[in-house]
């Protein structure tokens, strides 16, 4: 089976400091990979390099494209990479304000990716937007409201709808539940799990919340100081942590 995403020896330096160093992994279709670690451990740098938001210094990010098969996205031309960014890839930001257009209605936000790939029929765009708002449990009566009138949880769900409308195969998520209260988090996680399973999406989820990865991720990668210190199946890593840092991380979780 060809991996959907194959990362080889990816490194990114900020001057002399390490962003992330020598990261390699394979992600197979339908698989969800969690990346955990403390603040400053290089999780977000890694995710941005994978999604093409930042150029890595060394290494390859090979994505299995629909038409041409495996291609190195680091070395592909910018138009191709941006095309991937709005068709086969999706990026869910931690802060919905970074991923939404706040001055444009919810419907317009969902429709933007469709229009970006050439949809030119207002009625069809609107139908698709309505369908997706329903799927992420936003009342279709709020379709013409701006995201600034939405609660944080709704904004995050809108961001997810906006990203999934073009049927991507790979979703990058940067702390998708950060900044939400626990009950809203639980609903969002439930929704995400349903969508990921039903659509057969592959996902890379960066988070510092172990509960999130326990629920969503099949496999786990633990990062510290820019290096991957432990990888394995999620339950295996969380229940039987081998590396000292992972042990610290797992034992630091507050029990209610």
């Amino acid at each position: 089976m060809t991996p959907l995403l194959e990362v080889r020896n990816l490194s990114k330096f900020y001057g002399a400091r390490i962003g992330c160093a020598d990261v390699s992994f394979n992600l197979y279709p339908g698989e969800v990979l969690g990346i955990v670690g403390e603040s400053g451990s290089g999780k977000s740098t890694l995710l941005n390099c994978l999604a093409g938001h930042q150029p890595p210094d060394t290494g390859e990010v090979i994505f299995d494209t629909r038409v041409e098969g495996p291609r190195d996205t680091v070395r592909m031309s910018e138009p191709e990479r941006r095309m991937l960014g709005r068709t086969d890839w999706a990026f869910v930001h931690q802060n919905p304000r970074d991923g939404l257009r706040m001055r444009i209605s919810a419907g317009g936000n969902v429709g933007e990716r469709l229009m970006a790939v050439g949809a030119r029929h207002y009625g069809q765009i609107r139908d698709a937007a309505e369908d997706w708002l329903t799927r992420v449990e936003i009342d279709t009566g709020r379709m013409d409201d701006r995201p600034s009138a939405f609660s944080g949880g709704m904004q995050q769900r809108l961001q997810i709808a906006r990203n999934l409308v073009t049927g991507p195969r790979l979703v990058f998520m940067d702390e998708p539940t950060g900044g939400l209260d626990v009950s809203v988090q639980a609903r969002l996680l439930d929704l995400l799990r349903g969508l990921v399973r039903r659509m057969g999406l592959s996902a890379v989820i960066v988070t510092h919340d172990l509960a999130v990865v326990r629920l969503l991720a099949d496999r786990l990668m633990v990062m510290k100081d820019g290096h991957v210190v432990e990888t394995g199946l999620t339950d295996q890593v969380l229940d039987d942590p081998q590396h000292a840092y992972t042990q610290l991380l797992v034992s630091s979780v507050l029990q209610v």
Partner: protein
Amino acid sequence: MISHYNFAYLDEQTKRMIRRAILKGVAVPGYQVPFASREMPMPYGWGTGGVQVSAACLTPGDTLKVIDQGADDTTNAVSIRKFFERTAGVAVTERTAEASIIQTRHRIPEVPLTEDQILVYQVPMPEPLRFLEPRESETRKMHALEEYGLMHVKLYEDIARHGEIATAYNYPVKVEDRYVMSPSPIPKFDNPKLESPALQLFGAGREQRIYALPPHTKAVSLDFEDYPFDPSRADHPCALCGATDSYLDEVITDDAGGRMFVCSDTDYCAGRRGEDAA
């Protein structure tokens, strides 16, 4: 004509620089060519870009017409016309058909233009994507990569909010299936006239951009399949000349709700009334 000035105010090197930008603009229709806009003896927003393009195109044998919102007799038009009368000594006219260069603010004349004419637009904001994407680096990239989905998001918002495409002026066009271009704030009624036998040049002084539509260039107004482009027009005849095919201004005549609709193109209206009288 004042002899202390070079012909048409600008020095020859500057005109040469502007002509280069114009030529590049003509070669790549709809592409915004940066140029080193000069300080002009008028404030930004009064047509400094248009004046520089006109100055670079003028020859002593030209006849100049200047329009401001369709009219020949408003402040902006009169000032610019006087400016070139004094600094270039060229003949001026108010008749569209007699002019070889027409500088215009926000209208295209009703009388069809010919291949012997140049229409120069004053452009306040040349970037059609500006209010959707504030970063210049990003809009340039979007033009380069032909990523124009965002323009349709704006039209989508119009329909979602107003039930129709409510953009009434500065209506974006796609030039030769490549660049999305702002036609300057002309009413969308004028958009079909952009496909013209005349050379059309656009000058934005403050933003330092020049772009062009060569004669007979395709310029398609953006729209949706189920909400096609509609060059709307007030549903009245002109109160002065009775024209039913011209763009109308609504004029308030008193405090009691009295109003009249008159041709925005004063030369067209006067010409029609002259014919009616004869």
